[in-house]
C-alpha cells in the first residue's frame, strides 16, 4: 500500500445500521471524487462483504480494547485499499486460511467456477458461510487478498484482510 489518505474508518463493535451508514459515506465520497459506476460498485461490494464479515463473526473479547473490530478505507493514487480486522476463534483459522489461499490461487475464470460450484453445492449457510463472500471480494479486487492472523491468546486471534480496488483509468 502506498502512502494514502484514510477516507473512512470505524473502530469498535459494528451494528447493521452502522454498515449502512459507512456504505452511504463511501458512496458520497466516491461520487465527490468523480469515480465511475464500475469503481463504486466494486468498492460497494468489497465493503459489504468485509463489513458483514466483521458483523457476523465479531467474537468480541470483553475488556480487550486493542483487538476491537476495525475498518478503514484508504485512497491511494491508483487504488482504494480496504482493511478489515476482527477477532476470531483460533479453531476457525485453518478453514478460513484454506478458503483465502484457494481464492488467491485462482484467476478470474477460476473464481467464477468456484462461485458457481459453491452455490450449486448447496452448502451455503444463511450467513453465506461457505465462503461466497470471500470469493466475491476476490472477484472485485485487482490483487490477491492480503491477510494475517495475530495470535492474542489460547482461544482468540486478530484477523485482518486487505483488499485493493483499482480506480486507475476508471475516472
Amino acid at each position: 500500500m502506498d502512502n494514502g489518505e484514510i477516507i473512512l474508518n470505524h473502530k469498535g463493535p459494528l451494528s447493521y445500521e452502522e454498515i449502512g451508514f459507512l456504505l452511504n459515506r463511501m458512496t458520497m465520497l466516491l461520487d465527490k471524487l468523480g469515480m465511475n459506476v464500475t469503481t463504486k460498485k466494486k468498492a460497494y461490494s468489497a465493503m459489504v462483504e468485509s463489513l458483514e464479515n466483521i458483523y457476523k463473526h465479531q467474537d468480541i473479547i470483553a475488556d480487550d480494547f486493542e483487538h476491537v473490530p476495525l475498518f478503514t478505507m484508504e485512497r491511494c493514487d491508483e487504488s482504494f485499499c480496504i482493511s478489515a480486522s476482527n477477532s476470531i476463534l483460533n479453531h476457525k483459522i485453518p478453514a478460513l486460511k484454506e478458503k483465502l489461499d484457494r481464492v488467491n490461487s485462482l484467476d478470474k475464470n477460476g473464481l467464477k467456477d468456484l462461485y458457481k460450484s459453491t452455490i450449486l453445492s448447496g452448502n451455503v449457510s444463511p450467513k453465506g458461510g461457505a465462503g461466497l463472500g470471500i470469493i466475491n471480494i476476490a472477484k472485485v479486487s485487482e490483487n490477491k487478498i492480503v491477510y494475517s492472523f495475530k495470535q492474542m491468546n489460547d482461544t482468540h486471534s486478530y484477523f485482518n484482510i486487505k483488499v485493493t480496488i483499482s480506480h486507475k483509468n476508471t475516472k
Partner: protein
Amino acid sequence: MEDLIIEGTNISPKVCFEPKRNLLEIGGYSRPENVRDFFYPIISWLEKYRGSLAAESNQGTSREPITFKFKFIYFNSSSAKFIYDIVIELSELQRIGVPLKIYWYFDEDDEELHEAGEELSDMAHVPFSFVEIKQQ
C-alpha cells in the same frame, strides 16, 4: 393466487408479484440482515404459484405467457444463493410447460451484475433476456 407485494428499502429488494397481470418483478438492493427470513416467503409463494399453474395446466387451460423481471442494483453473497433458488423455481415452471420470459436488467457500466445474471442463467440452464439500462 394473491399478489405478493413487498416495499423495497436500501437493504432489501422490492417485490411485486402480480399473477393476474402475469408480471413478476424483484429488484433493488439486497443485503437484508436476515436473508433467510426475507427470501423464504418469496420462494414459498413461487412454489404455491407453480402448484396453481400446474392445476390450470391439468385442466387444459391455455394461458398467456408470464414475464419475470430481475431488476437488481446490488445483491450480496448471502442473497446470491436465494436468488439462485428463485431461478430454479422459474426453471420448474418452464419444465411443467408454463410459457415464461425472464429478463435480467443491468446498468450499462455494471459488468459485474451482467455477469452475475449470465452465471445464474448458465447454472440453472434457464435462458435470460438481458436488458442494458442506459445512463441518462
